[in-house]
């Protein structure tokens, strides 16, 4: 009898248990509340702004936001993708292991025993699930809020001002969300790696967001030339191509490639480190 009766490593820490453990956290609820409320806040903000009138030639994404629900959703995504969603994803993935360490509950899970690889795997799946829910819920709520506030009209493309029928663009919107998910994978992986290295949940989130900011700054240095293409943030806005009149894949494919590359390596490093780590928290 090497193990207690009924114990099987592959049955430890079921996803359902981990989801419940994370869901009741105030942090989770506040973040989802914020993401769901943001579109409505934006709608109200647009209602306060000067109405219609002489719209000049500028066809910026923010000027077009009130044209239709789809335009509004694209706008909401564009203002949140570069930071808010990054923070949300970093929060869910950076917090997951580090918070257990800070509560000291990590050692009891490991001594339960939940095998280390399995603990990380289950936590990663649940954290990615929450991140995906966050990335999806914002544009979907924005679509709902925008449609209620501004109507279901054809989308007007930023830059050129061309219009695309709303029904044509709806599947494109799916592509946008899917790409946003893939491009946030690298944030998730980075936050997760930091999470396995520190006992401070905010340190993990802040570390991931901080590195993200550094990449964004580096990206502005044109002297880096082609090297910038390999920065994880470089292709962050490639989803705009999905809303262009001609659907353009190349940017999104490159972005997905870079994101998956970083994510795979970062996650592998996280597993490798955690497997051998002395848990002293």
């Amino acid at each position, binding site marked *: 009898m090497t193990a207690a009766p009924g114990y099987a490593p592959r049955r430890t*820490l079921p996803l359902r248990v981990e989801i419940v453990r994370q869901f009741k956290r105030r942090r989770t609820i506040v973040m989802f509340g914020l993401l769901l409320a943001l579109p409505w806040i934006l709608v109200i903000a647009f209602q306060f702004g000067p109405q219609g009138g002489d719209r000049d030639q500028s066809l910026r994404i923010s000027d077009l936001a009130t044209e239709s629900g789809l335009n509004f959703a694209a706008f909401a995504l564009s203002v949140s993708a570069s930071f808010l969603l990054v923070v949300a994803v970093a929060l869910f993935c950076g917090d997951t292991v580090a918070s257990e360490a800070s509560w*000291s509950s990590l050692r009891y899970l490991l001594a*339960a025993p939940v095998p280390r690889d399995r603990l990380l795997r289950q936590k990663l799946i649940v954290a990615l699930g929450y991140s995906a829910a966050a990335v999806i819920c914002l544009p979907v709520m924005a679509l709902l809020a925008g449609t209620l506030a501004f109507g279901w009209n054809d989308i007007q493309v930023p830059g050129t001002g061309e219009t695309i029928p709303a029904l044509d663009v709806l599947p494109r919107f799916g592509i946008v969300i899917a790409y946003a998910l893939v491009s946030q994978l690298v944030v998730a992986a980075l936050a997760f790696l930091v999470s396995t290295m520190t006992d401070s949940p905010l340190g993990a989130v802040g570390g991931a967001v901080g590195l993200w900011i550094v990449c964004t700054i580096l990206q502005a240095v044109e002297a880096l030339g082609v090297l910038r293409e390999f920065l994880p943030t470089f292709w962050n806005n490639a989803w705009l191509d999905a809303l262009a009149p001609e659907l353009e894949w190349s940017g999104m494919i490159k972005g997905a490639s870079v994101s998956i*590359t970083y994510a795979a390596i970062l996650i592998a490093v996280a597993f490798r480190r955690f497997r051998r780590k002395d848990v002293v928290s």
Partner: protein
Amino acid sequence: MKRVAASAAALALIAATTWLVWPSGAEVRGQDQTITVVDGPADDQRVELDTTFFPPPGGGKAPAVLLGHGFGGSKRSVEDEAIRIAQDGYAVLTWSARGFGRSTGEIALNSPDYEVKDVKQLIDWLAKRPEVLLDASDDPRVGIAGGSYGGAIALMTAAHDRRVDAIVPRITWSDLADALFPNTAVPLSAAGDAGQSSAAGSLPEAENGVFKRMWAGIFFGQGVSLDSLALRGRPETARPLTPEQARCGRFRPEICAVYEEVAKTGRPTPEAVDLLRESSPITVAAQIKAPTLLIQGQRDSLFPLSHADANARAIAAGGTPVSLAWFDGGHDGGDGEADWVFEQSSAWFARYLKGEGDGKTAPPVSAFTVTRDGGRDPGTRQRVRLHPETGSYPGLGGTATSTVELAGPAQNIANPPGGAPASISSVPGVGGLLGGQNSPGVAIDMPGQSAAFESRPLTAPLQLTGSSTATIRVSGQGGTEATLFAKLYDVADSIQPPTLPAGLVAPIRVAIPEGATSAEATITLPAVDHAFAAGHRLRLVLTTTDMGFATPAEPATYQVSLVSSTLTVPTVGTLAAASGGVAWWVWAMPLAAVVVAAALLVTGRARDRRRPGARTGAAALPEPADGRTPVLTVNGAAAEAPAPDPAVPLEISGLAKAYSNGELAVDNLSFRVEQGQVLGLLGPNGAGKTTTMRMMMGLIQPDGGEIRIFGERVTPGAPVLSRLGSFVEGPGFLPHLSGRDNIELYWAATGRPVADAHFDEALEIAGLGKALQRAVRTYSQGMRQRLAIAQAMLGLPDLLVLDEPTNGLDPPQIREMREVLKRYARDGRTVIVSSHLLAEVEQTCSHVVVMHRGKLVSAGPVSLLLSSAPRSAGAGNGHGTRLEDVFLDLIGDNA
């Protein structure tokens, strides 16, 4: 953290080194030279040309490149480009053409008698330079490059001098007469009176062309330099102007006279056409034997793409290799694509001057390349350009044609008196400055002056590459000439203004014969590369005015209609992007990353397995004195590792763990705990008790020795840990969940059946009552402590490890806990308790292990320890020996 810092430092070092070592271009120094040449029809005019010679930076002999400047510029305006070419491994000679910069002489518009003779003598001069590679004596290996005026001299010189080995003319003309007097209409037949139809049509196009007034004014007036580089610096002039120069600039008098004549009337004269044809490569292009790369701008209303087309066809007819590129640039602006253009010319010269890639049949630049908009870069949101190419040049008629049906009634349009106000298509000279580089061509048509014919929305995208054609009928008074301007708009919808691709118009002049009421003509629209999106319309507009051209001052009205409703649109389906598909790394990188990730994981696992095994030999496990008394002997007594005994709850042998600074937290610790014991683990702070307990739980890995629980070696996550209940260094709960949720979710996390948990027994020990439903963060220290012990007892583990279990408990609870532990061990289970309350241990434990500074000091039954203690310890206090005295004695602190 140290490792992170080290890798960051290493990265910084690599970056800095790369920065320093990165090959920067070799330094090129220009040598100013004044070269005296003799030219003129009789070879009797001495001209001093101001030149700069850039020797090849690598030394030795290299092919030479002559680099000409644009109109209004000088050798100074091409200095940067010259240095760049020289760094590419050439000897470069720049010169100010006669009449420009500090050179003497008068402008003869690249005439064979003047400028061409000058450049031939520059080639003679190059042949004498020691730095220049020679093909034969007096025949240097030489290429000529240049834009606009400098491009025309390349073509003209190559036609007149066989020593030229390759040329790269950019944005230049083929027929100067056609450039200044264009007319793209070819009469079909004169309607009405058939007999008089042919007279007007037989004229050469230019002699009936529409004067490109604004461009010509800029060209001849020298007020505005065509050379964008010269706009930035101060123009060089030799000396103040004479009255003659003020009138004619620095032009030759015959050119000046001809210009004054045509500018006054707005009509070409035969002398003017002859003079301009003298300076036109088209007349001599068939003689060109030097491989030619023609780079023409898509945004060029001065020398539109049709000029490169004419040159390319004439040169190719002589069997000479020609490639043609339509880039995003030209006299009207555009991006200019300086780097891309440089790469193309560099490739061209590398093949035909340096001889790289000799023997290849395909030219180094595809026969036909077009710069297209590739959307925006996803990272920077900047415009990107694609360069689709094809192996054969299709001409302006394309490889295939599509037809688009245009519709519109006959429309009356008027030529306003004086030709004003005029429609605007592009503003010569400043088009690039006003419109911005990437703005679509937005044109203004004056109302009442334009007739429009529009197609239905396109059902599929249409990529126009070349010149579309249409046939029109112009009705009006017989014996008059209608001057019209044809434009082909891209109309997206009713909201956005239609765009005029590249801002180009086709001027047409249709003569309505005497006695007839109308004339028909085929009109050729400007050559462009433009993508009409599906849903867009094509709109053909004919206007009577255009700001860039001279139009008749006489008021007139015409009726314009389509002869055939068909617009013929050329397409080139073979144009394909050079790179084709996505870059290799897009696929390779994620695959490589997955492989690396797998390698990281697999190697990590392999090392884990090897590591502790290698250390087992260090374990020194003392044999128990007999089977019943598991007395533990101390340190170092080497013995063979016995077969693991699954009945022994805990067996530690040779255990060692060092802090990161090398100090040993646990040093060669060995002891053994038998079933049914309650073992007290004693030691002052820092003795290594907690570290040992963490190693029991598989949280930290021993540096040496091993721990066995029920015969199984403890590794992180070893299944045998499921038989261990632990409470080490305080409770660990999720503060936002209630006590009950915490306990239940913890059990659920073990994956074991709920029935095995014995929640009720455990929770009874916790004794929390209703508080169990509250969030843990509201609990007191003692409540958490009890809940944590209850959690450790979940499932009634065979081995229970408790670290300071009575901390924070009040005396009744301590007493109760003591009973709980004793009862627990009585059922055949084993308990290990660490505590600093020695009285507690004395009352609870059957056995004790004393540790000090990571080492085992003493071990055995409490009773034995007490009886074997030296009398000195605590003697004479009348209470017999207490554990406290023994302990202090053992650790040597009993002062």
